[in-house]
């Protein structure tokens, strides 16, 4: 019971505790109220019942008294009517009369029997009785022939019958005592144990005398509270007022009811205890599943998958089921999210992040005897494939690559890094494993013709391979190594692979330094523009110059554009560089004669940005150069990408009056459709065709075809890399209008260009 209460107190903050406490409190309140109300009700009822008992008892008493008196009257009547008795009386035979009275007294067990004559004279059964005959006759004359009389100073009950001879001559009176003994005897006849006594009114206690007749009153006595009633008894003697006093001890009256009250209290207590137990049970039934649910939630929050048992009431079962369902749903979603976050949606392969995690673990275990091989794979010219064949085809190709790699290397982890890049991790290579063999295997798998959607495609992939721990001991560096190797493979001409070598790292380092230097050079204006003349065969004069950038590095001397332009392209510095070239070229050209134009190379990166047209307008405005004297050279690669956008830009530039030339024509993804959709002002025939003119007849045919085509499209043609007079003549015959190359002049400084222009007429003569 004590522990039980302590538990309850501890739980009072919990739901279960509150329910139980509320239950118990309510029950206790109800029980207490019932007990108080019922108890006082019972008390009141008992009190009233006792009062009623007493009142009815008084009536019973009076009734019994009157019955007794009737019996006495009956017995007396027999004698009073007896002829012999009357005769004896009539003849004054006192002895006979007295003997008859004695006989009657004994027969009725009376205290006294007497004849009282009308004038009050007494004929008693025995001498010495104190009876007030006159007072009794006075009462009898008023018709009260039964009642209380005074005999020898004490009250007694009496009954009188007339003695008639045949006229009334007196009364035969029978008197019986009315003492405590007789009253007690009477009391035994009544239902309840009351005490009674008969006293004269004058001798009543003051407390009793104050009570109204027939009313039940409550008095405090030495023996405790009593109910009492005083009622009048009929006197049969003038001048006395007898009173019947009945006393009923309250304790006695309430005896039965107090038992009832105890029983009620016991029932109340039992009910409260049972209710408390029930409240605790219900509270537990609710709080226990809630507790386990809360615990499960805590565990789940901490990361463990926790389920709760489905038990208890239907609501709780439903709650538990819902919770378990929620856990499952969250698990499933988490799994999906995890999968999505670690996998590529297109190919279903792990993504870069997952790959790196796996690599981290593999690298942590790697030793010389337990090597890791990673390959960085890139689909060559994927952008072109996407653009020309469409994205669905590109996606199919990527899925093909993924499938092929997985099939060929089931023990390896193959991941897609995004775009057209894939990674392959082959862990646990033994010391004598042949990495070159692995590389060849990849090469064989990927560099193949493939059939996708019924179309034959020449799949070409480049990849770089790095092996830990010999190349790098951590995953970041291992990835970098593989990346460098890939870069090298791409540079080597695509469709091939390269193992990482320390030299690659050195080259990468050089490129990084170069990029840093490049930024500084742009900031400090270290670049110079050189100009190479563009010679018109038809007019036999220099019609313009191509502006070419040169970087005289303070420490490393002149650096070739072939070295730094790719770096500038990659880093985005080409945009700034291009703008500088444009302004500088326009600036110099503005100093030249009006019939000499300038050609500026525009990087694809510049075309992709938004600022080119603005830049051109500003350069022209700043230098005052006529737009027609500016020629922008773009390469075919600009058409890989958003063709519409590029065309729009070029049209915009041409509307300014600026001329546009297509550089290196014939080397890239040349498409005649470009030529049709954008009418270039000039085609620059790549120098490879010019060089080939010496020993390849077909080159001659190609040049011829180009010039014919250009003619048809009203475009000028210019041949690059012309070094000999033979070339010049061949080109002239092929219909080429302009040439450029060492035959005319090497690129020269701006000052030299100005001088070159000034001397032109003389050389023209010389030519």
């Amino acid at each position, binding site marked *: 019971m004590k522990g039980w209460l302590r538990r309850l107190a501890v739980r009072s903050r919990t739901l279960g505790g509150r329910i139980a406490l509320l239950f118990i409190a309510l029950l206790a309140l109800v029980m207490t109220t019932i007990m108080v109300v019922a108890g006082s009700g019972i008390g009141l009822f008992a009190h009233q019942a006792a009062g009623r008992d007493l009142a009815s008892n008084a009536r019973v008493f009076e009734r019994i008294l009157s019955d007794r008196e009737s019996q006495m009257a009956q017995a007396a009547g027999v004698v009073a*009517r007896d002829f012999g008795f*009357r*005769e004896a009386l009539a003849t004054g035979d006192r002895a006979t009369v007295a003997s008859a009275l004695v006989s009657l007294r004994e027969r009725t067990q009376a205290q006294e029997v007497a004849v009282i004559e009308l004038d009050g004279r007494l004929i008693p059964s025995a001498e010495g009785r104190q009876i007030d005959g006159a007072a009794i006759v006075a009462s*009898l*004359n008023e018709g009260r022939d039964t009642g209380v009389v005074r005999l020898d100073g004490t009250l007694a009950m009496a009954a009188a019958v007339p003695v008639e*001879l*045949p*006229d009334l001559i007196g009364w035969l009176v029978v008197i019986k005592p009315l003492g405590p003994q007789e009253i007690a005897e009477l009391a035994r006849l009544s239902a309840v144990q009351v005490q009674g006594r008969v006293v004269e009114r004058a001798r009543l206690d003051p407390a009793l005398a104050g009570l109204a007749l027939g009313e039940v009153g409550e008095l405090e006595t030495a023996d405790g509270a009593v109910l009492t009633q005083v009622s009048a008894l009929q006197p049969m003697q003038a001048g006395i007022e007898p009173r019947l006093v009945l006393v009923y001890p309250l304790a006695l009256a309430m005896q039965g009811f107090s038992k009832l009250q105890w029983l009620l209290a016991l029932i109340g207590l039992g009910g409260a205890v049972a209710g408390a137990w029930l409240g605790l049970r219900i509270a537990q039934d609710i709080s226990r599943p809630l507790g386990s649910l809360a615990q499960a939630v805590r565990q789940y929050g901490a990361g463990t998958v926790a389920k709760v048992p489905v038990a208890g009431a239907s609501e709780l079962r439903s709650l538990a089921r819902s919770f378990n369902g929620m856990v499952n749903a969250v698990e499933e979603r988490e799994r999906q999210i995890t999968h999505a976050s670690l996998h590529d949606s297109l190919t279903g392969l792990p993504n870069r992040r997952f790959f790196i995690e796996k690599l981290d673990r593999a690298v942590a275990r790697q030793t010389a005897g337990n090597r890791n091989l990673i390959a960085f794979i890139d689909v060559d010219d994927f952008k072109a494939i996407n653009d020309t064949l469409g994205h669905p085809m590109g996606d199919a190709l990527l899925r093909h690559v993924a499938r092929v790699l997985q099939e060929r290397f089931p023990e390896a982890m193959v991941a897609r890094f995004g775009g057209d890049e894939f990674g392959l991790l082959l862990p646990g290579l033994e010391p004598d494993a042949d990495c070159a063999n692995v590389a060849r295997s990849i090469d064989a798998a990927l560099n193949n013709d493939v059939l996708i959607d019924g179309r034959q495609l020449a799949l070409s992939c480049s990849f770089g391979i790095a092996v830990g721990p010999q190349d790098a001991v951590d995953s970041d560096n291992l990835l970098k190594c593989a990346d460098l190797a890939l870069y090298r493979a791409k540079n080597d001409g695509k469709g091939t692979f390269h193992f990482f070598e320390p030299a690659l790292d050195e080259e990468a380092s050089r490129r990084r330094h170069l990029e840093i230097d490049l930024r500084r050079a742009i900031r400090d204006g270290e670049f110079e523009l050189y100009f190479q003349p563009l010679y018109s065969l038809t007019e036999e004069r220099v019609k313009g110059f191509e502006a070419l950038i040169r970087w005289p590095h303070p420490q490393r001397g002149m650096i070739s554009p072939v070295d730094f332009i790719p770096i500038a392209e990659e880093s985005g510095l080409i945009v700034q560089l291009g703008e500088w070239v444009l302004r500088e070229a326009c600036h110099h050209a503005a100093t030249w004669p009006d019939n000499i134009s300038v050609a500026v190379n525009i990087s694809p990166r510049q075309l992709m940005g938004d600022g080119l047209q603005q830049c051109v307008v500003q350069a022209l405005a700043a230098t005052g150069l006529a737009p027609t004297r500016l020629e922008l050279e773009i390469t075919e690669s600009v058409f890989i990408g958003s063709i519409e956008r590029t065309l729009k830009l070029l049209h915009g530039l041409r509307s300014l009056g600026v001329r546009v030339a297509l550089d290196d024509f014939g080397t890239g993804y040349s498409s005649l459709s470009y030529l049709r959709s954008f009418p270039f002002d000039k085609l620059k025939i790549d120098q490879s065709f010019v060089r080939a003119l010496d020993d390849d007849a077909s080159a001659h045919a190609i040049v011829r075809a180009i010039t014919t085509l250009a003619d048809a499209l009203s475009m000028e043609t210019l041949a690059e890399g012309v070094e000999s007079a033979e070339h010049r003549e061949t080109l002239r015959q092929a219909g080429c209008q302009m040439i450029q190359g060492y035959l005319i002049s090497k690129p020269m400084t701006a000052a030299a260009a100005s001088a070159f222009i000034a001397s032109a007429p003389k050389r023209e003569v010389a030519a």
Partner: protein
Amino acid sequence: MTLRGNSRLARLAAILAFAPVLVSAAPPAELSVQIVDKAGIPLRDAVIEIARPAGDTRPVAFGWRNAMAQRDLAFIPGTLIVPQGSVVAFPNLDKVRHSIYSFSKPARFKIDLYGRDQTRTQRFDISGSVSLGCNIHDAMRGYIRVVSTPYAAKTDAGGNAQIPGLGRGSYSVVVWHPTLAGAGNEWRGQLSAVPGQRSRIVVSIQPRAAR
């Protein structure tokens, strides 16, 4: 004193008897008396006796039978005035039998049960009142007043009684009734009678009977 009064009356009566012309206008001599109790209620069946004046020789006889019948468990008439020495018949007119008794001093007797249409007789030699009862019917009460004067009558329901043969004068009167207070249930006194005028006698009755 009584004698002297009586002789004067007798003389007066004689004069009147001999002077018929004079008294022819006067009504016949008759004494009218009413008996009431203190409350003024007339007393029925009270017997009024007026003592024979001195020299009066009128025989003691009345106009009714000396018989006390029993009918419907009652004595008929309830009160009977008989001359001293007369024999009274007790005819039983009931279907039941009766047993008549008396404990009264003038005549103590007991007649054993007798049946219907039987008659018993009893002689009453002493004047006074005799209370009759039936030994088997307690409620039956009968009274016989044995008188030695011819001037006796019992009151009717209005408490009135006419006693013929008596003129103006002062008379010694006894009134008897079973409920009358006083010795022998009698009232005694003098009455001054005026012919044609009703005399009223007020008596007291027993308290018990008054209720």
